[in-house]
């Protein structure tokens, strides 16, 4: 019996797919799994697990939080970057918030409220500044750690006399970060209002914070992977004094450990220098154990 052409063609297609599935979908990956059993390679193929006293404590490639049960940073450890995934490898994510995400949603119920990326950055910077004893101020941030953003209302929308100015990310009992804007007194925001929809023009205020803040960029931003195992050498540097104090160690000795766990650019030009936080903290526990 001769099959119609279209049927024969689809049968050939099905046979081809099955052949390739066996070859490329089973034989090839399983052969590579077998290659991954080669001594020396097996540790990496299994996820670069690191252990202390025979117990796995993580992977040297996967970042983790060094916080206590309540989510507060543990001062004797170097801290990782913020993570949109909470360092959970089963739910990796980035924040995906855009460069002009500057207006918080402040609802009457806290659960429906949402911080803008700017306020997240400002809040982190302020918290790290206090924690590590450095200047936590940043451009476009208020001193109480939210985005310094005004909604400016004018008589004709975009033009005309200013009728009203609201600091959109600050609610009572805060004090407006600016007393007045072009002569008009600045009000605090009321929960439940959308000042942009009501016609206010979003106006971020730069302020007088230094352009290169003391708290480095990676310390206040969430990573791409949500699992970034690294911090910049600059972020490690501002943490040295605190960690040394907590461990009764010489800051110079802690600094030496930091550089020992810093990888430079591969071949001198690939990527950026980075400090592996988990490996650094493990080394600290070995060299300067706390009681």
């Amino acid at each position, binding site marked *: 019996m001769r099959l119609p052409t279209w049927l024969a*063609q*689809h*049968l*050939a*297609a*099905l*046979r*081809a797919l099955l*052949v390739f599935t066996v070859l*490329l*979908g089973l034989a*090839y*990956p*399983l052969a*590579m*799994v077998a290659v991954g059993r080669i001594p020396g390679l097996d540790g*990496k193929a*299994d*996820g*670069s*697990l690191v252990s202390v006293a025979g117990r*796995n404590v*993580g*992977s040297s*490639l996967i970042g*983790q939080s*060094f*916080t206590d049960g309540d989510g507060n940073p*543990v001062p004797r450890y170097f801290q990782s970057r913020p993570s949109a*995934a909470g360092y*959970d*490898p*089963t*739910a*990796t994510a*980035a924040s*995906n918030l*855009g*460069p*002009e*995400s500057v207006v918080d949603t402040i609802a009457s119920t806290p659960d429906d409220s949402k911080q803008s*990326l700017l306020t997240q*950055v400002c809040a982190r910077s302020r918290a790290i500044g206090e924690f590590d004893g450095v200047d936590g101020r*940043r*451009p*476009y941030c208020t001193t109480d750690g939210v985005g310094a953003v005004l909604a400016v209302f004018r008589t004709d929308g975009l033009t005309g006399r200013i009728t009203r100015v609201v600091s959109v990310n600050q609610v009572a009992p805060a004090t407006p970060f600016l007393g007045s804007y072009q002569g008009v007194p600045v009000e605090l925001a009321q929960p439940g209002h959308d000042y*942009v929809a009501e016609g206010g023009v979003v106006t971020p205020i730069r302020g007088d914070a230094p352009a290169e803040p003391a708290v480095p*960029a990676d310390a206040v*931003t*969430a*990573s*791409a*992977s949500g*699992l970034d195992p690294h911090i910049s050498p600059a972020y490690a540097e501002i943490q040295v004094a605190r960690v040394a104090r907590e461990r009764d160690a010489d800051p110079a000795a802690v600094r030496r450990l930091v550089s020992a766990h810093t*990888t430079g*650019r591969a071949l001198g030009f*690939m*990527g*950026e220098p*980075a400090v592996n936080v988990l490996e650094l903290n493990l080394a600290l526990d070995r060299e300067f154990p706390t009681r």
Partner: protein
Amino acid sequence: MTMTTAGIVFLLSLVAALVAVHKPFGDYLYRVVSGTRQSRVERVVYRLVGVNPAAEQTWAVYARSVLAFSAVSILFLYGFQRLQNHLWLSLGFDPVVPHGAWNTAVSFVTNTNWQWYSGESTMGHLVQMAGLAVQNFVSASVGIAVAVALVRGFARSRAGELGNFWVDLTRITLRILLPIAVFGALALMIGGVVQNLSGGTDVTTLTGGSQTITGGPVASQEVIKQLGTNGGGYYNTNSAHPFENPTTWTNWLEIFLILVIPFSLPRVFGRMVGQHRQGYAIAAVMAILALASVTLTNVFELAGHGTVPQAVAAAMEGKDVRFGVSDSATFAAATTLTSTGAVNSFHDSYTALGGMMPMINMMLGEVAPGGVGSGLYGLLILAVVTVFVAGLMVGRTPEYLGKKIGSREIKLASLYFLITPALVLIGTAAAFATGNNSTALNVGPHGLSEVLYAFTSASNNNGSAFAGITVNTPWWNTALGLCMLLGRFLPIIFVLALAGSLARQKPAPASEGTLPTHRPLFVGMVVGVTVILVALTFLPALALGPLAEGL
């Protein structure tokens, strides 16, 4: 070395590597697609598939073979996902929801690899390696095969046939993709990419928290995902995930793998039509557009304009420390200049103009250098359009490589060009008309950018995203699935039809009136036509999204 200098050297080293490799590798590709000697494995494959490797196909039969193979693949992948809970290594995951399974099946068969799901919480190891990763290979081979068929159309004279799809598919897969994948996977494993079948290792962290270290056959999939310009991540955060891209040098290698086949195909084109210089002209167009785009992306990201990047003092949101700003921007450009769509940083958090560049790269039709195969055939279509436009301007008969560009040819080329803009703009409009844009995470112009990016990415078979938008809804999965399907196979049909009609012609000898298509003038004209066509089509949409936000 400053960050900027390191970024420049990084880029130059990639250029140098591609320049060094494209000739020998292109020559090897040429031998693969034009050779006739069969290996023992190939003979076994042909026997199992039941095809006669010596029989050639007309364009219509070739196209039907492509479509049959893809249709069967979509059905197979759909069923695979729906039944995964009954299969080995499912990690206890439920069957994938129907609209999601449809979207993913189309996504991987069309070389798009758009992902509405998180790999680590949706797909078992078996679906990933024996379902999705298989399509990473064969969808790439389909693209290269179609490009080769088009080039045969230019190269052949008074011929009815364009080659045999099954032979092309088999040879490209077994002689090009698989060997490189084996060595590439090994290199990635040395860098730290995982390759196991573990369901995850539970650990207690230093401060007493718990963490599950995930497993999977990742290295074997990561390499072909880049080499085949696919882009579907094993995990949600794709090539930013340290288990997919652990070091700064694996990052370099992955970008190189993305670009190596697309930049070597013009060499194959030159050899097949018997004039290397024609291949160089095409490569030059690709290189000019690509370098301009990579440079601009880097400039915008390093400048870090915008409120949040200024507050942070660097565009570091959504970027990992080891890659930094520059190498992330270079990856973003490479992945969208091709049809890859893998990401090592999150484009949604880029500066407004920095995030516009990946979108423009895709809107260019992904021709610089484009996806494997699809980049070459896309650019050849643009070259045909250019010849036609130039002919109109100076009153010369339009011809390319001795083949007349008559009314049938230019109709096919125009239809090819019109499909993706139509899908992008109609899709974006439909999302707003039906209120489905409300799933965007960001508001204002950035919300429009998220929707526009989604349709641009799907229709051009890229697969990257402004990932803030939630697309796991029946409407989004269905709409984007349709865009991917039509954005892949309608152009392929037109390309093959064009190839068929070119192959039938007898090449006319070059005359006084022939426009030389290997000179810088022609290169400049193709660049100009490409940029102008895209600008005319997409400027209004861009003005409402990234331009409104960034200027």
